[in-house]
């Protein structure tokens, strides 16, 4: 097992990240993570999934669209159980610099349109929809020609009254 891991790590380090394009590229990036509410105590962390797609006319700059799904922020600490589900989509811009072969820091500014639904007491309690600006910072790690991974922290304020802070890990496919 150790030998396999050593080989894998060596491969990751030595493989040239040839997918750093001089020209334009497309990136598709599915990710998963955990999201928590920073301004209201009483909810557990929700998992979330998100898929980003971006077009980079330049390696340093990209235009981004995404969809996201938060299956449920559940209330904690007694009382009636309530859960809030959020679906979102949006667009933004991404900047990455330096475009290093092995590690590429990036920031993203985007805007998410969201639909939130609160359930509890065996019924839908209320629905809400709106839009929130988001800011993300992360690091991409190119591994093979088109394949890489990323880690990211991000946040959206005032999603139906909640400030969401989240951490995610994802894959990168850059064409």
């Amino acid at each position: 097992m150790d030998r396999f891991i050593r080989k894998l790590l060596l491969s990751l380090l030595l493989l040239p990240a040839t997918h750093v394009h001089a020209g334009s590229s497309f990136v598709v990036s599915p990710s998963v993570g955990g999201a928590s509410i920073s301004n209201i105590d009483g909810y557990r962390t929700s998992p979330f999934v998100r898929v980003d797609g971006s077009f980079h006319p330049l390696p340093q700059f990209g235009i981004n669209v995404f969809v996201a799904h938060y299956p449920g922020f559940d209330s904690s600490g007694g009382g009636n159980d309530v859960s809030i589900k959020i679906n979102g989509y949006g667009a933004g811009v991404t900047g990455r610099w330096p475009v290093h072969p092995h590690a590429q820091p990036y920031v993203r500014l985007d805007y998410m349109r969201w639909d939130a639904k609160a359930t509890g007491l065996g019924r839908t309690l209320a629905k809400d929809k709106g839009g929130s600006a988001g800011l993300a910072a992360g690091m991409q790690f190119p591994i093979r020609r088109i394949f890489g991974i990323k880690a990211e922290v991000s946040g959206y304020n005032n999603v139906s009254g909640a400030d969401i802070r989240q951490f995610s890990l994802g894959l990168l496919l850059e064409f």
Partner: protein
Amino acid sequence: MEFTRKGTVAPILMLLSLTLLAGCGGETASPTTWYPVSSIYAYMKAVQDVSGNVNTTVQLRNGPTVDATYLYLDGGDRLYSSLDISPQQYLDFNGNLFSNSLELSQRLKVMSSRDLYADYGVFTNVIFGKPEYFSVDTPNTSSSPTRVYVGFERNGQVLESSVDLPAAFQIVAPASGDSISRATPVTLTWTDADPATTMELDVAGICTDNSQYNLHLILGTDTGSATLNSADYYQGNASINCLVAFMLQRVRTGGVSPQFAFGSFSKGIQQRTVQFTSTP
């Protein structure tokens, strides 16, 4: 094979006989769905004790008399309780889902069921087969007076009843732990008399011969004191000591949703308790 059959039949016979016995002596309750709301008698009581917590109980019956059948919630019927903000307000909200849902989660109580229960301080009493609904709420200290709401939900509609709790008071005399002779009357005094309310007294005693009793007295308009002869509060053997609890209640009547049967009522109660030893 024969052994197996005997072993199977015996428990069935025992269950059958227990079922018949239960049918003879047990109380029965009916589901609320058998009755339109206008046929349901709702009796609601919100009691705040020295801890500050508000214990809300609701009994639903099919008639106004004591022998009426108690009703249990069925078919999606539900009882809620809340303090100062009505259940409907908690249930109806738009926007700010996170904070509003959390308020609902923490402040709106779905009332739980239990068999009819009375805590007399020196002993408790449970009457099986008669369901009642209860919840415990902690009031926001900044609101005065505290308003207690009870909501009965049927088919998405919530019928609301409410009562304001009367002002708090403390029992001055007798002091807790006193020994009081039954040879002379006992004077019960309390603070902050409120002539707009009625005083009631639950008395319970448990004696050295293990006998126990309880009484309910209506003292009348709140004057701040009441004098009780031993015959008023004592039902034990004349020659023995008893531990006696006075549960003094300041009572205010509240409103019940007019859709319930006429005769339904709600009471808001401040209750303070003192225990003493009653001697011959």
